[in-house]
Structures are given as C-alpha cells and as structure tokens.
C-alpha cells in the first residue's frame, strides 16, 4: 500500500492507494499513529483509491477512530465505494463514521481552510 497525505490547516487528509488488509495494515497504522503523536488528530481518510478492505482493515479504521476521538479528534471517511459503504452498514459502523463525497465538505466538518501538500 502507498499513502499520500496533505493538510488543510489542522486537518490531515490521508489517501491510501491499494488494499487495507491484514498484510498491509502496518503502513496505514504507522501513518495515523505518527499523526496522533504529533497531535494531528483531525483526520480525513480518502478511500477513493482503496481497492479492497477486509475485516482487519475495517478494524484498523475503527481502532484509529477510537484513538482520535479519545484525543479530541475524529476520523471521517471520504469517497467510500459502494462496496465499502455496504461493509460499514453490515458491521453497524455506518452509524459511527461520518461519510463525505467532497473533500471540502469533509474538511469543513472540522472547520478548517488553506492547503499544504506533502507525501509520505
């Protein structure tokens, strides 16, 4: 899995490319953990280029949501596929995650502006 990220003020948009699965979960976990350690707990997870999510990947998203919320932040989902939305529904996580189809809307839900991009 490859991940890029960019910041909009205090919101970080994470863009994973590939699968979020047991075998590849460490990459995403490390990126989120690093952000949390830096106090950057307002996170948008852009799923547009995610090709597959298994239960471990979904579990990782839940775990990072809980971590961010405990520190006053949040993890919001952007551009989930119909398949991902179905998975959220059958695991009752649709009632947990806020889902957006526009990055502006997702970021605005935190209340931020201005753009700075970088890659990890």
């Amino acid at each position: 899995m490859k991940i890029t990220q960019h910041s909009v003020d205090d919101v970080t948009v994470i863009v994973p490319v590939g699968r979020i699965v047991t075998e590849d979960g460490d990459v995403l976990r490390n990126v989120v953990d690093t952000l949390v350690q830096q106090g950057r707990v307002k996170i948008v997870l852009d799923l547009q280029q995610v090709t597959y999510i298994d239960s471990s990947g979904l579990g990782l998203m839940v775990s990072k949501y809980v971590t961010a919320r405990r520190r006053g932040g949040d993890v919001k989902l952007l551009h989930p596929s119909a398949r991902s939305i179905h998975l959220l529904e059958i695991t009752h996580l649709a009632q947990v995650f806020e889902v957006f189809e526009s990055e502006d809307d997702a970021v605005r839900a935190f209340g931020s502006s201005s753009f700075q991009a970088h890659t990890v």
Partner: protein
Amino acid sequence: MTTMTPIGRVLVVDDDRALRHALAALLQDAGYQTEQAADGPAALATLERQSVDCMLLDIGLPGMSGLDVLARAREAASPPRIVMMTADDTPDVLLRSLQGQAHAFVRKPFPPARIVDIVNDVRRASAAASLPIEVVSASADWLELVAPCSLEMAERVQDFVMQLDARLPDDVRESVAQAFRELLSNAVEWGGRLDPTRTVRIACLRSKRMLLYRISDPGDGFDINRLAHAAISNADDPLRHDRVRQDMGLRPGGLGLVMTRALVDELIYNEKRNEVVLVKYLD
C-alpha cells in the same frame, strides 16, 4: 549513466511477440531484469542456463503447452515462482495450474499494470507462500485442497478459488470472495496459529443453485460465548469490541464473523467450531 540493480529476474514466456515485449518493457520499467522465450523448449533452456525469480507463462503455447512447461519447470534445481497466463476461461486450465503448483493465475486480457502488481506480490511473498498445496479433488464442482497455515497461502488459494467463480454476478462473487477470505484467514491465523507446518482443509462445492465452502482448521475451536473481543458479541455497541481488544492486547479486528454472517446465506459451525461451512444460494 547509472545502472540500477534489478529487483528481480523475470522470464516472460509467450508466443505473442508483441505482448511478450510489452510485458518485458513494463517489468523493466518497474526495475526487473527480464528474459524472454517464445515457446516451452526455449523457456526450459533459459531456466537451465540461469535462475529466475518469477516466470510469466502463457498456457496456450504452440507445441509444448504452458502446463507441460509448468510441470518441467517445477523439477528445476531452483524452480521459479510461476504465474500462469491464459485467454482460456474454462475451469480446467485453472485447476490444472493449481495441481501443477503454479503460484498465481491470471486471465487475459488484463490491464498492463496488473501484471506488475502480480510480479511485485510474487517477489515479496515469503517462502511460506510457495509451500505446496495438496489438491485432493480438482473437479470444478468439487475442489478440495489441503494447504499450509499462512496468510499468503490463504490469499493465493482465495485468488485461485474465486477465479472459478468468475462468471457469477459481481455482487455475489464479491460477497462470497470476502466471506471466504475472512473465514480462511481466521482458520490459518486463529486455528493454525500461522504455523505453516499445520494445515487447513478447504472444500469448494458448486451446484446449480448454491455455492458451499467448508474450511477445517487444526485448532481447538472456540466458544461463541467467550468472544467479547468480537463485534458479533457486541451488537448493541459497534465500538465495544475494539476497547476489549485493546485491553487484551489484540490487534485491531474482530469484525470478520459479523461481516461474514451478513455476506452469505448460511454459516454453520461444527460443535468444536474448528470447522465451518458457508452457503450462498444462487436463486
């Protein structure tokens, strides 16, 4: 001019010259050293001359078929991991590739980038991913395998099995594939403790009206009443299982059973719960 050290050596075997060259060029761009062969004898001669990490092997070669080359290549002193390629969409070639211990199987046509992803996955796979899979039954209606307990093997098996279901409607195929993957991963991880010296037994049965998969793992089973770390035991709170898992020091997860239950029509465990059957009805 700088010379990059190749990340691996790939032998591309296809009688379609244009495709062979295109694949070689893609792989070279991705950092691989490539060799090419237009038929089986040339491929085997290349393998005698030098070791390669991966062989992309067309099945429909003139004269000696790719399946014959697969059998011969497996006898090499240092056999490569072999990815079979074919435009034949019948189950027979897939099953014979599996019997021949091919590492992966890809149907033509495929997006060019996909072959680079496949070769990258093959290159990164651990030794456990190449352990032999015993094919107990190679009928398209009854495929039965005994396979070592590793996640990479589980992925390899899933890839083969789900290509047998390529003609199903997308939503059915995706649901079955996800459920099968979840159960097989559970079997090798929790039942087999990711110990490749232990094995899981997998049966995939197809009738006109249903798909049935049975997975037996070598573990002691589990108690459904002692799964506080799983979402299926916390229907009233979708986050509680994560807190329990953190307290227990478990990796994130716990959603496999609740997910699988919703994706298939029936999920039946034996008494010990080290054997599970999933059923998906097709009408």
